[in-house]
């Protein structure tokens, strides 16, 4: 594959192929940072990929008490799905099981969006007619009595129809430690980009997949071209000096945000350099025919 070089890091002349998704977000607040983070972590759990989860979700950023609607510590989370209906179902389930149950939390919408999802309006009935509606500045909130006081939840949450899911970077290095060092730096840099999340564990996925399988009925299987232990026996895409590949998958509210996140990730990897970090950066695609969003690495270089 033709390659460019930045500070000794080889960058494939390739592109990441991403897909349209529906996205939404919440601001979760709690009496202290610990419980805001706990709520966000649980609410975004088991939400790595829509292949097997109901949505892809992650923490966008932490919010100081000055930045939240109720002046308490908060966390902004984003969730993405293939359709508005799918996101709505996932969000309502997750708020009901993870946030209604979490001590001290309150839930607010964080975007106007193209349409509204009924979140508080769907779970107000948990209050068994003791729930109280509060309208403020055109928004409705529900106060649902619970055993630690009240669960405050905004009635409707905004949803953006045209988001982007599946922006990605393949980070390739000599061994696990150096590759992880570069990838973690990239994830941290992407974390600074607003409106984007990296939904996999710690923002990193090690089991990149290809379409199809030798087994009947399996739509996806391990991406053997990028498995370092198969370098000699498969049609490998890896160079001799590559011993580990980690992938970062990025979902964002807009096309530009995903591009910005990838740019920030590449910059962080290049900054560390090939000796301490990754030797090569690639991107995953399906030939460009499946996803309408293409992020060419050569356009995102520092």
């Amino acid at each position: 594959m033709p390659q460019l070089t930045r500070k000794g890091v080889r960058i494939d002349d390739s592109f990441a192929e991403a897909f349209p998704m529906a996205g939404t977000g919440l601001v979760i607040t709690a009496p202290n940072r610990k419980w805001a983070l706990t709520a966000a972590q649980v609410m975004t759990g088991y939400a790595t990929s829509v292949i097997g989860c109901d949505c892809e979700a992650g923490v966008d950023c932490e919010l100081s008490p000055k930045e939240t609607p109720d002046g308490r510590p908060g966390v902004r989370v984003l969730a993405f799905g293939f359709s508005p209906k799918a996101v709505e179902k996932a969000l309502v389930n997750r708020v009901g099981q993870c946030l209604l149950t979490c001590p001290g939390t309150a839930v607010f919408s964080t975007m106007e969006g193209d349409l509204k999802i009924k979140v508080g309006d769907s779970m107000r009935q948990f209050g068994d007619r003791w729930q109280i509606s509060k309208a403020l500045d055109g928004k409705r909130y529900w106060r649902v009595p619970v055993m630690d006081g009240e669960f405050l939840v905004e009635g409707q949450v905004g949803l953006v129809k045209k988001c982007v899911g599946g922006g990605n970077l393949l980070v390739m290095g000599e061994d696990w430690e150096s590759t992880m060092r570069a990838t973690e730096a990239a994830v941290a840099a992407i974390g600074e980009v607003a409106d984007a999340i990296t939904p996999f564990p710690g923002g990193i996925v090690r089991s990149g997949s290809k379409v199809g399988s030798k087994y009947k009925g399996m739509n996806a299987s391990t991406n053997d071209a990028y498995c370092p232990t198969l370098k000699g026996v498969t049609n490998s895409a890896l160079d001799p000096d590559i011993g580990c590949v980690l992938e970062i998958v990025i979902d964002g509210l807009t096309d530009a945000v995903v591009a910005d996140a990838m740019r920030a990730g590449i910059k962080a990897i290049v900054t560390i350099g090939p000796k301490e970090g990754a030797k090569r950066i690639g991107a995953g695609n399906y030939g460009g025919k499946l996803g309408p969003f293409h992020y060419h690495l050569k356009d995102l270089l520092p």
Partner: protein
Amino acid sequence: MKPLLFTLRHAPTQRLDLSPLTPDRLIGRALKETEAIEIGTTEVAIKVGDLFKLRSGDPRALHFEGGSEHFDFLGQKLLPGFSIHVEGDVGFGLARNATGGRITVAGDAGPFAASGMSGGHVAIEGDAGDFLCGPLAGEIAGMSGGRVIVRGNVGARAGDRLRRGVVVIEGDAGADFGARAIAGTIILNGKAEGRIGYLNRRASLVLAHSVDFGPTYVDCGAHNFAFAKLFARALADDSRRAARLLSQRLQRYAGDTAVYGKGEILTPA
């Protein structure tokens, strides 16, 4: 662009119906046409030009230099995006049935201010009369949305049949504060007298001073309410005193259990 200015020439001798003087009704009118609008309510005809000296300006923002307790129905049916400021007093029915916009009154307001209002922002720097946000006779509900701030005192029956919206009173309230309220939120920084929250169905009455609320209000303990903190943040620009009150740990008295009983009175714990 400067606002369209109405300077009062002399104190009116009869009650005035100022409902025609809202921005949406004045846009596109020449000054002479505005001056010809009839605003009298008796057999003695009074036109705008007789009482006000007009200076041209942006009709989306009206400025009244000088007011009177005879200024009735000012800002009636005001629409979103428009504003009215009165440097003086106003009379009966300020912002009556307004659906949006902003009204600021530097002086006092008469009875039934914000009656039937469904949206918008009304700020009264002085006192307000009886039935603040209340319905007129025969109407089912009072104010059904928007925000009202009164810096001074209010008369009797403030928040009568309040349906929705937020009312902040920084001064004292007259008799039967929050009586018959259907829903909504009223915050009172001063003192109240009489039957507070009498027949309140679902409204939240937040009072800075606790008194005996009678046997139909039931103590539910002291709590930190997330909703109160949300309201404190939202009201901080309008009333720091209200925001401070809402930021506190609050004692909840549920009631009025003589009726629906889903309402509450909240006071600092």
